[in-house]
């Protein structure tokens, strides 16, 4: 009886993990712009990996004694995923990637390139700068 419950929990974790990882990857193809696509891997895929690892943790703990490494891997994955997502978003802003037209809000980071162009187009020679 207990075996069935534990096996059920393992199966549930593995299926949930697979489903979340799949949906996260699906988001990569379905969503419209870079910033929206970032949401998939940063959340769903991390939880997908987390669920799979916890399933594996239960399975191997039952087979040969308690195993904690996988819990550590899960924690490390959850700590590092937001940092990489943040860096990706930051570099996207740096490259001034165009967000989807439906996006509201207009951060300065995305428009600061414009004045530079007007400077380049201005006639050269009589620059006010020394």
């Amino acid at each position, binding site marked *: 009886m207990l075996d069935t419950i534990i096996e059920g929990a393992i199966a549930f974790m593995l299926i949930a993990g697979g489903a*979340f990882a799949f*949906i*996260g990857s*699906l*988001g990569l193809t*379905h*969503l419209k*712009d870079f*910033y*929206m696509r*970032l*949401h*998939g891997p*940063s*959340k*769903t895929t*991390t*939880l997908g990996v987390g669920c799979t690892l916890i399933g594996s943790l239960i399975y191997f703990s039952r087979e040969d004694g308690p*195993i*904690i*490494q996988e819990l*550590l891997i899960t924690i490390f994955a*959850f*700590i590092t*995923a*937001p*940092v990489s*997502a*943040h860096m990706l*978003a*930051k570099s*996207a*802003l740096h490259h001034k990637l165009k*967000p*989807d037209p*439906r*996006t*509201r*809000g*207009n*951060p300065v*980071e*995305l428009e600061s390139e414009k004045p530079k162009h007007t400077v380049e187009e201005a006639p050269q020679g009589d620059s006010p700068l020394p």
Partner: protein
Amino acid sequence: MIPPTRWLPMPVLSLLLLLVWLLLQQSVALGQWILGGVLAILIPMICRPFWERQPTIKRPLKLLGYFFRVLGDIVTANVQVSKLILDPRGRMRPAFVEYPLTLKENFPITILASTITMTPGTVSAHLRLDGRTLLIHALDVADTKALIDEIHQRYERPLLEIFES
């Protein structure tokens, strides 16, 4: 908190390193304690110059509560984002939100930014150089004001109490 000494410039980090070492080795043999202990002393001494001043945790219990709240929110976040991705009509209202920070120290801000990334429909994209605004990209938001209020009440307020109260 444990006060730093010359040999242990960052006691909490040292303790954490020793603990992680023992857990990864799956053993509490004397050799592992010695090796882990040496690493726990050497690593903080070598990488000390890279670290900023460590903030003091004023309410460890609250931190634990915060941890479990975020853990629960990660699951709801995933269900929400999954729903949005699977929605065939693809009705999304993405937005950039400028979030005004009340936190001042870098470490709590890092935790807040990571939390925002892991929880419902938001990714922290950029921390302005003045350290006052956090640029957030939200996947589906109806009211940006409400989102800012929610983040403030749910995450920033506890962090303020834990680290800076």
